[in-house]
């Protein structure tokens, strides 16, 4: 598994984890009457917290991923060559991390998919407003569609890295 594919899988897992935790937290809080449809401020606070959590988790996952990837490389090199040096591992990781033309093309294509997902979410949320649903529903659809857009972005990257551009 190459660096890009492994990194994309890590992004997908962290994105799904945050989304699942958010949905679980929100549904359990709503059922326990801790949240109501009229308290927009509380919903906004929760969403801001989860955006922060998402960013923090992405950073932590990347750090853990780098550590695991380095360990994997060290094990692989020591099996192949009998020994491994820190400089070699660092050099290999730097080479794997190179952002080249294919990476940029894949990033552009996947970003288009995430924009489409977020756009569909935005239009859907407007429809809910038109049909007199509470504003909270609109907010949640927007929030979830942005997260799903991010996850789809990673899935698209995974697709292009494995199947080709």
């Amino acid at each position, binding site marked *: 598994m*190459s*660096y*890009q*594919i492994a990194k994309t899988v890590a992004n997908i897992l962290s994105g799904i984890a945050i989304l699942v935790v958010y949905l679980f937290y929100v549904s359990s809080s709503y059922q326990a009457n801790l949240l109501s449809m009229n308290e927009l401020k509380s919903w906004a606070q929760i969403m801001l917290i989860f955006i922060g959590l998402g960013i923090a988790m992405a950073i932590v996952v990347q750090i853990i991923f780098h550590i695991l990837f380095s360990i994997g490389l060290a094990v692989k090199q020591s099996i192949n060559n009998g020994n491994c040096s820190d400089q070699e591992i660092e050099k*290999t990781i730097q*080479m*794997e*991390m*190179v*952002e*080249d*033309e*294919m*990476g940029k093309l894949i990033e552009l294509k996947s970003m288009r998919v995430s924009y489409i997902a977020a756009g569909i979410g935005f239009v859907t949320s407007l429809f809910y407003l038109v049909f007199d649903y509470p504003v909270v529903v609109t907010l949640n659809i927007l929030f979830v569609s942005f997260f799903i857009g991010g996850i789809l972005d990673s899935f698209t990257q995974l697709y292009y*890295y494995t*199947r*080709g*551009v």
Partner: protein
Amino acid sequence: MGKQFEITNNIRKLRFFADEMTQQQLAEKAEVSRQTIIAIEGGKYSPSLELAFRIAHAFGVHINEVFDYRVVENKK
């Protein structure tokens, strides 16, 4: 009946004749990631002209010896 175009490459063969150069070594010489070399070698990605020249330069051969452009007749 339409025409399709196909770009094939001899990177695997050239790597073999270049003292079994690894994909990682070729990636270093062409200044791209190993993933990109894997994709090009497997015919999953057509590189830009600049990268094609860089790969040819890494092997020290003309670009024609690395990439081949063919017109394939589509019978559909």
